[in-house]
């Protein structure tokens, strides 16, 4: 009764969770694409796309991907054998165990009318599949907690999944072990199946089971003479053998039975097997109910992502379907961390300590964003920075074993975030090259806004940009910057500047304008001079910093060996640091 009720409750939660999750794929929007398409139209577009694909030659692509990437997981094998071995153990162990053992009344009994969980091959296979999962869990723990691959991060989600799976497996094996030794189980079976046997027969049967089947009896103890065993075997063959293979075939449970043998009577009296049974099925049901909300959901979504990505392409597929696919992809990520380990800028995390830099950690943030979670300015800026700190090299997309088009996702979300109006300073770095190249194809009408916003945030208040006719305050702003600049070898050189203007004359940016001060604020030699005097606010208000190419003409030409370009680079860093501090202060207020 309790079993049935909990089963149906967990099934109901699972079903509702599934419906809820799938509905988000059509209800939510990610990024700038297809955000005006209402959900019903998204569903229609999906049905249309699916039908057209299934009745086209692309069905062959789907089949190929299903075999190679879903069943054999070639992509994972090519990257990392250990990871592939881990996943194959878990994937096949779990699937086969679920079908043969978990759903035995539905699947196995239908296929094999003589099915008993206690006869071979089922007894042996159950143990084999189980041990595969245990090996898989073992490798998973080894990889995440002992091997400690750089930047492979473990989230609570990963731990929950391992814990639930481990409880199911360990309780299952212990249950099998205690059932083997259990005297009360033996007695129950005797009562049920040996109706016509007399007392002597039962005594020899018990002796036989103690000797051969691992039962621990309070009544009879080994050793037994050959005669007793022979008689016992006869009784055994009469009543038991049809449904019971030797327990040694259930090698894991049998090993545990041997280990727990000294405590077997105690365990039996404490009704351990029934407690373990409760733990076992409740853990299964909790796992089932939690599945749509856990990383285990990827057993459905990852194959779907692999299949969808094999037949879809930006520009060719319906944008509504691309949007739906991108939401499915968010659920298809199983947080394996391959992208973060291989990310070309992953190492930057060690310098900037924003987890959103790592691709695998961007996914939960993007999920929170699309679900409409309320985020404060700092949280948005962190996600934004992570999304922008990307060279668009596509490596994450190429290596993702779930086939998620990560790069496309980042670009898409990046653009929606920029519209939220939080400043992003990375738009002032060469990482913007890709955005510039994509500008034409995306028709971004707000294209310059984020650049201007970043500049406005950096410019100190109170210092006008067009200041040629005004008097700038000649008092160093007392914010302790000079000490920062002096720490680096190169920056010390600015004090050698005697304002000969050679750097400015060599600068191709300055030469590009008839009246450069109008466009760039301060000229390179003025900036060096201002740095010498500690006039930081003046420097930070100059657009020249952000129009500097880093072409090193100034530095090469300087007769005083001032590392002009190197100093300009360092001033850019300082300008951004002070802007960030300003933003944090605003929040505190």
């Amino acid at each position, binding site marked *: 009764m309790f079993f049935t009720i909990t089963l149906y409750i967990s099934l109901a939660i699972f079903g509702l969770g599934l419906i809820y999750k799938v509905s988000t794929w059509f209800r939510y929007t990610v990024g700038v694409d297809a955000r005006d398409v209402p959900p019903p139209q998204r569903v229609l577009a999906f049905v249309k796309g699916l039908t057209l694909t299934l009745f086209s030659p692309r069905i062959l692509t789907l089949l190929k991907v299903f075999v190679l990437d879903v069943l054999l997981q070639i992509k994972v094998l090519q990257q990392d054998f250990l990871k592939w071995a881990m996943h194959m153990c878990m994937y096949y162990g779990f699937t086969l165990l679920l079908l043969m053992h978990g759903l035995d009344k539905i699947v196995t009994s239908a296929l094999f009318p003589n099915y008993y969980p206690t006869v071979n091959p089922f007894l042996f296979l159950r143990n084999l599949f189980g041990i595969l999962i245990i090996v898989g869990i073992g490798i998973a723990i080894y990889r995440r907690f002992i091997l400690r691959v750089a930047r492979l991060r473990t989230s609570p989600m990963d731990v929950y999944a391992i814990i639930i799976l481990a409880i199911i497996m360990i309780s299952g094996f212990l249950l099998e072990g205690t059932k083997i030794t259990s005297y009360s189980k033996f007695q129950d079976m005797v009562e049920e199946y040996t109706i016509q046997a007399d007392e002597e027969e039962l005594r020899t049967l018990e002796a036989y089971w103690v000797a051969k089947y691992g039962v621990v009896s309070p009544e009879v103890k080994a050793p037994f003479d050959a005669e007793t065993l022979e008689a016992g075997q006869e009784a055994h063959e009469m009543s038991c053998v049809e449904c019971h293979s030797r327990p040694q075939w259930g090698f894991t449970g049998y090993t545990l039975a041997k280990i727990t043998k000294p405590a077997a009577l105690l365990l039996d009296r404490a009704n351990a097997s029934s407690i373990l049974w409760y733990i076992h099925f409740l853990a299964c049901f909790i796992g089932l109910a939690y599945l749509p909300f856990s990383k285990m959901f990827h057993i459905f979504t990852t194959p779907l992502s692999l299949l969808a990505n094999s037949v879809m392409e930006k520009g060719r597929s319906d944008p509504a379907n691309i949007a739906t696919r991108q939401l499915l992809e968010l659920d298809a990520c199983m947080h394996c961390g391959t992208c973060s380990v291989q990310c070309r800028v*992953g*190492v930057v995390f*060690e310098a900037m300590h924003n987890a959103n830099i790592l691709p695998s950690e961007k996914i939960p943030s993007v999920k929170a964003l699309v679900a409409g979670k309320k985020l404060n300015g700092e949280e948005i800026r962190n996600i934004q920075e992570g999304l922008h700190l990307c*060279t668009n090299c596509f490596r994450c997309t190429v290596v993702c074993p779930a086939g998620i088009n990560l790069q496309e996702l980042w670009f898409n979300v990046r653009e929606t975030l920029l519209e939220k109006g939080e400043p992003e300073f990375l738009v002032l770095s*060469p990482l913007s*090259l890709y955005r*510039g190249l994509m500008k034409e194809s995306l028709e971004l009408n707000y294209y310059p806004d984020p650049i201007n916003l970043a500049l406005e945030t950096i410019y100190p208040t109170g210092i006008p940009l067009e200041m040629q006719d005004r008097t700038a305050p000649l008092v160093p702003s007392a914010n302790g910057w000079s000490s920062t600049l002096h720490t680096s070898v190169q920056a010390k050189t600015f004090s050698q500047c005697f304002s000969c203007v050679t750097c400015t004359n060599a600068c*191709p940016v300055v030469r590009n304008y008839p009246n450069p001060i109008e466009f760039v604020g301060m000229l390179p030699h003025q900036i060096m001079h201002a740095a010498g005097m500690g006039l930081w606010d003046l420097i930070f208000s100059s657009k020249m910093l952000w129009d500097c190419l*880093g072409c*090193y003409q100034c530095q090469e030409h300087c007769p005083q060996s001032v590392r002009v370009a190197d100093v300009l680079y360092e001033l850019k860093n300082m300008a951004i640091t002070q802007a960030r501090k300003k933003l944090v202060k605003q929040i505190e207020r």
Partner: protein
Amino acid sequence: MNFVLLRCCTTPIVLKQYEWSTNAVMEKLGIGLLDVPELGCCGYPLRNISFKAHVLATARNLALSEKENLDLLTVCNCCYGTMKYVDNLMKEDASIRNDVNTTLAKEGLRYEGDIKARHILQVLYEDIGIEAIKEKVVQTFDGLKIATHYGCRILRPSKVAQFDKPYSPSKFDELVEVTGAKSIDWSTKLECCGSPLWGINNELSLDLTENKLRDAKQSGADYLCVACSYCQIQFDIVQKILLSQRGIGAKLPSILYPQLLGLSLGIDGKTLGLAENQVSISEIEWFLLHKQAS
């Protein structure tokens, strides 16, 4: 002769032809290229934002290459300049070196400074040499006028770059002329291509590019020739945008040096990815003289 090849982040997607042509040319010249999959961003685009991040990214690549006990080869000026800069910095500033190595130790890496950062032009000129390349040339260009674009970071700052004379370089010109083409004089030869500002200040970036293209064209060039990913993106993909936006008729296609040299070495245009260039360079094969019967 073997090198670890640092593939620039931009090449796998927008400049595949740079990878293909480099592989083909280096193979032809007997240079072995080793791919180390862990190599990452060279650090260049990070410098505006975080000095520390940029140094760390560069040092990590150098350390990975040092682990293989091979010099680190790049096909990009910005990668080259950044690597030389960080290599220098780590040698002259012990505190930075220690900081970086402490962080790198987390993934079992360490940079001692025993290897060199190398640029493809440097390897071709210094390690293989003009004469050796000449011996392998099987067909030469006739009447082809090339505006050789050095790019910034291979020349400047000269104390760090250590490739050629910063005001009157000639090595790249010599390499171009090995193919039979003429490397012309043009006044903006040593100026920046404008790429560093693409995406940040597009108008200014286009101004600088347009200025160079016009100058090269007026000086009689048929093609630009570059050996840097960013310069090529600017002179190829961005030039296409420039042509459509500003409507200047002064189209001047840009060829990557390994493509130019590759043709001379008898490698076919398909292997060199000539068709991948956005501003078409396919007509350059017309300039090829006396193809040798094989």
